């Protein structure tokens, strides 16, 4: 490869080389300008706005105060009163993102393993199918699950028609469902609930999990596990000591990526999560575009969410390095 490049450069006249260089330079220039305009500037704007000040009954003005950051940790009435509302929302952002990403990876792993053992052509069909399902937006998916979990058109109807609801009432389990919010006096109900939220979020990223795990899993050498099997290791031992360790890194990487992706999910949370489990992403929206026009506080929440996500990614990276070093 390097030899070929050397030959090309030697064959070109010096004048041509300079022209190539300036073209390259121009391309880099354009790319960096695009980066600045579309990434850096909005990013800096969010940070700058987060120091602004809200005017009651109107919008907000530029300023420089840490009030919004203080409010995030202790609430607006500090020091008379403390609220951890915003920390709670941040907590739920992480809670849902972690559970849903881990669940997606755990279920996608066996599926992808089986997929890699299929015929090439069958694999291709599956992959195309999964790739195409990525084109569905969050809104579509949430709508779909919303219908599937609705009283008159979904799972609760099925429960009622098949007599399961009545049976649950007869054996007395219905009351327990009511206690945990999965039923009203008439029928079972699955939304809003943690169950619906996590289900939809994992479903949302499941195709990503398969696509991300597929390259690593398809490179797994089957002879390794076969060798272990011939030496008398059980299937579980092989999975634990041979397969999993060799895909530890892609597994970790996929989970982290899905986790970061899910931290910002908005539609799923706002439709399926109960109000006591709303997340920072929803709160950001309600401050910036909602009825109170408090962009500075929304921006401060966004900055904090970003910092917390970065910290998580950093620790993930550290863990990876540690695992690699072993």
């Amino acid at each position, binding site marked *: 490869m390097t030899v070929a490049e050397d030959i090309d450069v030697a064959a070109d006249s010096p004048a041509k080389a300079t022209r190539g260089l300036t073209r390259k330079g121009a391309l880099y220039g354009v790319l960096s300008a695009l980066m600045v305009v579309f990434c850096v500037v909005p990013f800096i704007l969010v940070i700058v706005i987060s120091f602004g000040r809200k*005017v*009651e009954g*109107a919008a907000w003005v530029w300023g420089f105060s840490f009030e919004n950051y203080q409010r995030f940790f202790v609430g607006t009435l500090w020091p008379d009163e403390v609220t951890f509302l915003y920390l709670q929302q941040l907590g739920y952002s992480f809670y849902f993102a972690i559970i849903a990403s881990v669940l997606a990876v755990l279920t996608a792993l066996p599926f992808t393993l089986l997929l890699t053992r299929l015929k090439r052509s069958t694999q291709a069909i599956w992959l195309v199918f999964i790739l195409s399902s990525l084109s569905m937006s969050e809104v579509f998916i949430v709508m779909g699950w*919303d*219908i599937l979990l*609705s*009283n008159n058109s979904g799972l609760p109807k099925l429960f009622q028609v098949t007599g399961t609801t009545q049976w649950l009432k007869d054996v007395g389990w219905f009351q327990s469902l009511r206690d945990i919010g999965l039923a*009203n006096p008439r029928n079972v109900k699955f939304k809003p609930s943690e169950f619906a939220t996590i289900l939809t979020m994992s479903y949302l990223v499941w195709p990503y999990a398969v696509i991300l795990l597929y390259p690593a899993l398809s490179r797994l050498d089957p002879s390794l596990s076969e060798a272990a099997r011939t030496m008398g290791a059980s299937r579980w031992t092989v999975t634990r000591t041979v397969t999993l360790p060799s895909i530890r890194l892609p597994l970790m990487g996929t989970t982290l990526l899905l986790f970061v992706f899910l931290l910002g999910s908005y539609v799923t949370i706002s*439709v399926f999560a109960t109000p006591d489990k709303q997340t920072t992403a929803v709160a950001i929206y309600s401050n910036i575009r909602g*009825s109170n026009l408090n962009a500075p506080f929304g921006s401060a929440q966004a900055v904090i969410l970003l910092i917390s996500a970065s910290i998580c990614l950093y620790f993930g990276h550290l863990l990876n390095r540690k695992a690699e070093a072993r």
Partner: protein
Amino acid sequence: MLKMNRRTLLKSGAASVAASSLATPLIAQSRSLKVGSYGGYFEDSFKSFVYPEFTAATGIEVESVTQPNSADWLVTMQQAASAGTVPTDISLYGRQQMIKASRIGGLIAPLNVSAIGNASNLDSYFIFEGPEGPQGVGAMSWFTALVFNPNEVETPASWADFWDTDTFEASLGLSNVYSSGLLDITSATFFEGEATMMSDDGILAIIDKVREIKPNVTLWWNAESQMEQGMKNGDVIGGQYYLDVANLMASDGFPIQPTFPKEGNLQDYGSWCLSEGSEKSEEAAEFMDFSCDPATQALMSRNIGTAPLVDQSATDLTDEEFAFVSGSPSIKPAYEAYLDNETFIKESWDKMLAEA
């Protein structure tokens, strides 16, 4: 085959730019007006029933612009104003958004009310006096009503019935936005109404009362369509919802019925405001004048389902038609409290919702 290269593309682009700039003076000559209204059914009805009447009466063409019924529109208008453009000549604002717009400044222009003769048909409350003079003329009014599923429950006589867990456990659909009326309704039902809303302690007392209804709420909606779906598919059997849409849904056969309980329903209204920077103040005045005409008010009630801002006796609406869009008593939102005490109310409300 047509060969498209960079040069022809540039040429055709230049041609279309030239064409569009040529077209502009023509439109200006034939007098036109860009009017904003809330999208969907609402805007469609305006386009089919109201704007054509206006064009027939004045010769002014109306270009309809879709705008949201929320503070979102203020953000858009602010951005447009700083970019030097005017997305609409006239926008439709709820009272709270209108006051916000006037406080932000540079968004809505003062009006020459003497050019709007029919404005005298309206109660002076509906002519909004901003810091720079009159800045809004009432357009129409709408109710947020108590709705219920008549197949599942009896007609509630009072909002207080919603607090009854035996009937409504995990079954209600209420708005999760602090300023969308549940506080006003609760205050009118259990406290002194608007007066209670004016103090922090009053707000906290009302919020405490709302906290008690939480076990009965299955859907805290933030978009109208969520509540519509909830009622249609039976997840929700009662709650707060727009009177006109509820009536329309009911006439389509869906299991929903609005009612006026003894405390009444929440009444809010929209105003036409002239955008700052618009050069169409004359046409705008003519439009507002047309809108304040009792005949137009009746036209809107019949076709859009909004309540008229003039007395029923001034219009030719029958009692039945009037009952479809209006009723009594009405609960007025505590606009002042929402504006002056915004951050406190929002945070206390959010805290209450966020409790497990």
